[in-house]
């Protein structure tokens, strides 16, 4: 039976519905200590004194650890994927409220927590900067000196820089923007903003470290086990084979749990105490760990008399918070798609990653793309309206078609932009009359499309083992955090080896056992690891055939593996191991022009169409229809793929309508699910989820990644629909009833007072 394309339930369904699925959250080890973190109470300041006296006296406290103590086991205790800027515990300075300053260790987490609350820190407070545009000026500098990690060529020139908050600046120049703007019939500019929001995985960050004999085992809820091993080994100055990282299922990730988060801390604590140490954050503490970049995006377009966009200038400012995390990659990898999926000859992009005194920002389901699509699809809609053009027709006229070069210079292949747009328009009955409502409830509709390059160049390695009884096991370091990678890979192995996917067993990431993978992020797994898995299974199949020949089976016939092993080894014995790595070709963008003719191994295309009702008396917006469409290549498991599309869109609905981390003097004022509103079951609009099947020729069985595509279009489609309904434009997220009401009242010359 054909395995690829089957809609089988996820392999782990039974474990998940019975509550028995394995999460680090559940892990208890003999003699384990729990660590609770004391956190910075000022947004920016030099640490004068840390008083841990009272904490040490609390009955049951095993040990209190501050930044200087970490140096006993890690002399240079700074980590980070792009910059080595983040101390394991604060050393000389704190850079945001909530930054870890000290840890209390105790057998009982309640004791550790009570003691941690007694720790008092004196600071020399420094002025703080929170806004990304303000941070462009060097009046307030977050870090005294910049420390790039050295792994990325385009960050090297920042090494040792002082007096700046710019962690990365990416510039793209294509054609002649100034000349094209000068001859354009219309030149239109807008500024859009996005808010700070966060992932909120329901299994909050958690990690356990267990010291061994010259080794360290880390059990962690993390999307990048191979990176964690490399980084922890680097911090200790050890070879990688002394660090073992194990990852079971994740209770959600969404980009939060990439690179090192709690792992360096628990590793240092375990080495200091020679005991297993667990640190598990609360929901509130997640608001001080990692977030999504707030952005300001200034976009300007020149359009000719025929409605063709001939020039576009983009300036994007990414608010990276106190530590760079992966922000500089977001700035560059997303930066070159800032002009949108449009065929424009003259383009400039200036994209800046900025340090500020906020909780750090990193990757969140789209790696910066949803922020960009919000701006360029709101802007594109406004262009169409200004020209009196139909928004769908205007997009059709301007979108990138097969073979045409994208802004970076890379030609578009296997990118179903037109098909995604057409699917959305069809599901909205775009060409039919639309009921616009009457009285105080007005109706509108809008569309938006976006695209994303895959992170590159990145490697995945897979091992397929066929045992003596023919049962087959796959070893990968891809983390299944709910996206269904275990199931998809089992289907690929089963397809190659002619098995039932249900019979394939997956070994979860364990760096002593499973081979290297760059990380489960950026929708890269199905493409990269999927290709590696397919190649590894094919190698296993070749070896089985060779073994059959050795055993004397006639060539060209398929014998069950168990019979081959039995004949070859005289009993149920032996095994064959297929292994393969996958690394797509890639050319880094030129440091001056930002151009590359091979900037991504594949493109993700996603979009949304919505219908809304706007109450003109309250500003309340009700989404009455949400169509999500994405190019998914040839889906390996269409049922799982549709839930990815749907889940991503609903998540983005939260980022669009309600989610907003609010700050007061650098302090998050709504750090709980009571005050930070994520979508619940009553918030789900009627939805249609459309997989646009288009062969990805370089993908495994034609497939490509899909985890993020459902987020792309939702926010601007809603803003476009609101404009369509009531003629006001919202340019900042989230789109609350208050924001809409303010816009309506301002339009009518009766503005609401600012409170």
């Amino acid at each position, binding site marked *: 039976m054909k395995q690829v394309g089957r809609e089988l339930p996820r392999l782990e369904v039974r474990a998940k*519905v*019975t509550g028995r699925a394995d*999460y680090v959250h559940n892990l208890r080890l003999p003699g384990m200590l729990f660590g609770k973190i004391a956190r910075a109470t000022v947004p920016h300041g030099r640490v004068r004194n840390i008083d841990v006296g009272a904490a040490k006296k609390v009955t049951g406290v095993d040990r209190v650890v501050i930044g200087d103590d970490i140096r006993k086991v890690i002399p240079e205790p700074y980590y980070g994927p792009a910059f080595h800027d983040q101390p394991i515990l604060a050393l000389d300075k704190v850079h945001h409220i909530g930054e870890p300053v000290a840890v209390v260790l105790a057998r009982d987490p309640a004791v550790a927590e009570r003691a941690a609350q007694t720790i008092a820190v004196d600071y020399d407070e420094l002025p703080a900067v929170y806004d990304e545009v303000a941070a462009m000026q060097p009046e307030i500098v977050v870090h005294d000196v910049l420390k790039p990690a050295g792994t990325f060529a385009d960050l090297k020139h920042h090494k040792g820089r002082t007096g700046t908050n710019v962690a990365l600046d990416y510039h793209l120049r294509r054609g002649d923007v100034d000349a094209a703007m000068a001859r354009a019939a219309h030149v239109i500019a807008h500024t859009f903003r996005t808010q700070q929001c966060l992932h909120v995985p329901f299994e909050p960050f958690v990690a356990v470290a267990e010291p061994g004999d010259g080794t360290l085992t880390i059990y962690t809820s993390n999307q990048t086990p191979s990176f964690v091993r490399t980084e922890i080994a680097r911090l200790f100055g050890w070879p990688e084979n002394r660090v073992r990282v194990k990852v079971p299922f994740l209770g959600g990730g969404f980009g939060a749990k990439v690179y090192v988060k709690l792992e360096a801390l628990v590793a240092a604590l375990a080495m200091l105490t020679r005991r297993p140490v667990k640190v598990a954050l609360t929901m509130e503490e997640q608001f001080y760990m990692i977030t999504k970049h707030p952005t300001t995006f200034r976009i300007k377009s020149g359009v000719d008399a025929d409605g063709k966009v001939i020039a576009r200038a983009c300036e994007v400012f990414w608010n990276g918070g106190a530590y760079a995390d992966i922000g500089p990659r977001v700035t560059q990898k997303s930066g070159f798609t800032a002009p949108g999926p449009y065929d424009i000859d003259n383009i400039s992009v200036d994209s800046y990653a900025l340090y500020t005194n906020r909780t750090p920002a990193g990757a969140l389901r789209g790696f910066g793309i949803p922020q960009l699509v919000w701006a360029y699809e709101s802007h594109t809609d406004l262009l169409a309206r200004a020209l009196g053009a139909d928004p769908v027709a205007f997009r059709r006229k301007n979108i990138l078609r097969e073979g045409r070069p994208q802004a970076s210079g890379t030609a578009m292949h296997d990118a179903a932009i037109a098909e995604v747009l057409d699917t959305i328009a069809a599901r909205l009955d775009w060409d039919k009359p639309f009921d616009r409502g009457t009285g105080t409830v007005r109706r509108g509709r809008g569309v938006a499309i976006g695209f994303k390059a895959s992170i590159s160049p990145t490697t995945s390695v897979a091992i397929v083992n066929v045992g003596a009884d023919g049962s087959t096991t796959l070893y990968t370091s891809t983390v299944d955090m709910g996206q269904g990678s275990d199931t998809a890979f089992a289907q690929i192995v089963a397809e190659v080896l002619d098995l039932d996917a249900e019979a394939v067993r997956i070994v979860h990431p364990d760096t002593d056992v499973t081979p290297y993978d760059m990380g489960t992020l950026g929708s890269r797994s199905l493409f990269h690891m999927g290709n590696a898995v397919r190649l590894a299974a094919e190698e296993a199949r070749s070896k089985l055939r060779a073994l059959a020949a050795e055993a004397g089976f006639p060539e060209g016939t398929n014998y069950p593996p168990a019979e081959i092993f039995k004949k070859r080894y005289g009993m149920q014995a032996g095994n064959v191991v297929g292994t393969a790595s996958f690394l797509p070709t890639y050319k880094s963008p030129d440091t001056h022009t930002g151009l590359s003719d091979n900037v991504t191994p594949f493109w993700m295309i996603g979009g949304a169409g919505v219908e809304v009702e706007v109450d003109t008396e309250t500003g309340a917006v009700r989404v009455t229809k949400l169509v999500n469409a994405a190019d998914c290549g040839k889906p390996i498991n269409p049922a799982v793929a549709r839930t990815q599309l749907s889940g991503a869109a609903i998540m983005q609905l939260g980022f669009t309508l309600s989610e907003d981390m609010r700050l007061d003097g650098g302090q998050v004022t709504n750090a709980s699910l009571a005050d930070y509103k994520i979508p619940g079951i009553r918030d789900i609009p009627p939805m249609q989820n459309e997989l646009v099947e288009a062969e990805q020729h370089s993908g495994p069985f034609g497939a490509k990644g899909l985890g993020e595509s459902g987020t792309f279009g939702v926010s601007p489609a809603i803003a476009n629909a609101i404009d369509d309904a009531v003629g006001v434009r919202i340019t900042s997220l989230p789109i609350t009833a208050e924001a809409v009401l303010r816009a309506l009242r301002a339009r009518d010359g009766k503005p609401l007072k600012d409170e």
Partner: protein
Amino acid sequence: MSTRTVNFTLNGQLVSTEIEPHRNLVELLQRFDLFGARESCGQGLCGCCTVLVDDKAVSGCLYFGVWVDGKSVTTVESLDAEGALSIVQRAFIDCGAFQCGFCTPGFVLMVHQLLKEHPTPSDDDILHYLSGNLCRCAAYPEIIEAVKVAAKR
């Protein structure tokens, strides 16, 4: 800290333990190696820690362990005690009603209470009973479908 003795029925068996009065029900269950009820938001908002106490769903993170004295506690681990999954669990599988699975036990238990009290629930019944359970993977459409499938069976 002083402890108290609690005697209660846990998944059909009489049990007794000593517990400090500040421990919540999730912590109490962990002492019995039951990890299906999970503390996540810590405020009784997400439903990941849902447990049935005398057949009514409670948030285990807000419910003191000592309060179960003399009561009957049902956790997700009891639903397949005989080896077979419950109708609700099978419906969740058939509808693909979860992704990461962290919130799933809470939803499953809440749907058990819903179907016990409303064997043929209306759409509004479903939304009403499940509005106290959150799913960050947003499998809500599939969960609603699973409730309807389970009700038909």
